[in-house]
């Protein structure tokens, strides 16, 4: 049982950090790097085309 609570706490921490990180805007002048990333298939990557979350926030 303490194991489950510990795991839940870690999961919660991750969710919170993930959310706040994606709320934090990318500093000016850094967006261009997205172009340099092709050929990679990591879809969890923020630069992956399927990751349109940051764009949603901007709108």
């Amino acid at each position, binding site marked *: 049982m303490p*194991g489950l609570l510990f795991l*839940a706490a*870690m*999961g*919660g921490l991750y969710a*919170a950090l*993930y*959310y706040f990180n994606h709320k934090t805007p990318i500093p000016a002048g850094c967006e261009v790097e997205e172009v340099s990333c092709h050929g990679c298939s990591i879809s969890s990557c923020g630069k992956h085309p399927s990751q349109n979350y940051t764009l949603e926030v901007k709108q």
Partner: protein
Amino acid sequence: MFKKALHFTVFLALLSGLAGGALAYVNSITAPIINENAIAAEKVNLVKLFPGTSEFAPLEITNDETGFIQSAYTAKDAGIAYKVQVMGYANPIVFMVGISNDGKIVGLEILDLRDTAGIGTRVEDPEFKDNVVGKTTTDPLAALSGATVTSGAVIRGINAAKAHFNDSKGIDDGGGSDDPVTPPLVFGDPVGIFSNATASAPAEILEETTDGDVTTYLVASKGYAVLEGGYEGAKPNVFKIVINTAEKKVVSMELVEFNDTTGLGDKIDHEDFWAQFEGLATDDDSIEIDVVSGATVTAISAARALRGAIGE
């Protein structure tokens, strides 16, 4: 914004909790099977240690200070088998040692040994195993002379198992040391004090002090470093020899300065070796001593020193 964050946090926390529950459930099913498999893989060796026993159960090791014991199994009504890993000469050595319930070492199985062939691998020879198997958990164990690193490591591992066994059975081993005891000396062929072997390179008396009947000599005698090594700056060994001139007997002999190979020649510095000299008659030209196996040249240098001290 924070309300949203809280919502996400709770969502993933719940999901993680569920995931943990699922993991715990599957683990509770598979853990015993995995345990059994591990024992099955180990069983071949376990049976070698405890022939006639087929029921083994893993034993949790909690109070092993050395960290050598990897795992342990209790053999039903027979004893405990320990799987031990120690650092050998260059690579780890893995072995299993079985201790019966009456406190005797019943078997030693070397599982992984990659030390020098012919030297370190001697721990697999009957000579070493016979030395270990049959001893009780309170007996000290001796390393193999000439292979002290590998055999010493194995013995430190066995001692860790012994310590755990004694601890769990409440046997008092007097806080037995972790280190192997000095191995007993292995003697080689005898050499006469006045034989040809000692005539070739006469020893040199450095100092002579007489106190009544007792004369003490400091004698420099060429050992391995000078005779065989022959490198620049090689020095002879220096011995202190006490002779009772009235009784014409050697009283004692000891090594004062050692200049031969460490780890080989210095084996002669052992009470068993010196005991041979005590009481030798100086007027008898047939007296002889046994050389030390593996330290022959240094041992002969001692004989040569005595010849020098007695004189022709």
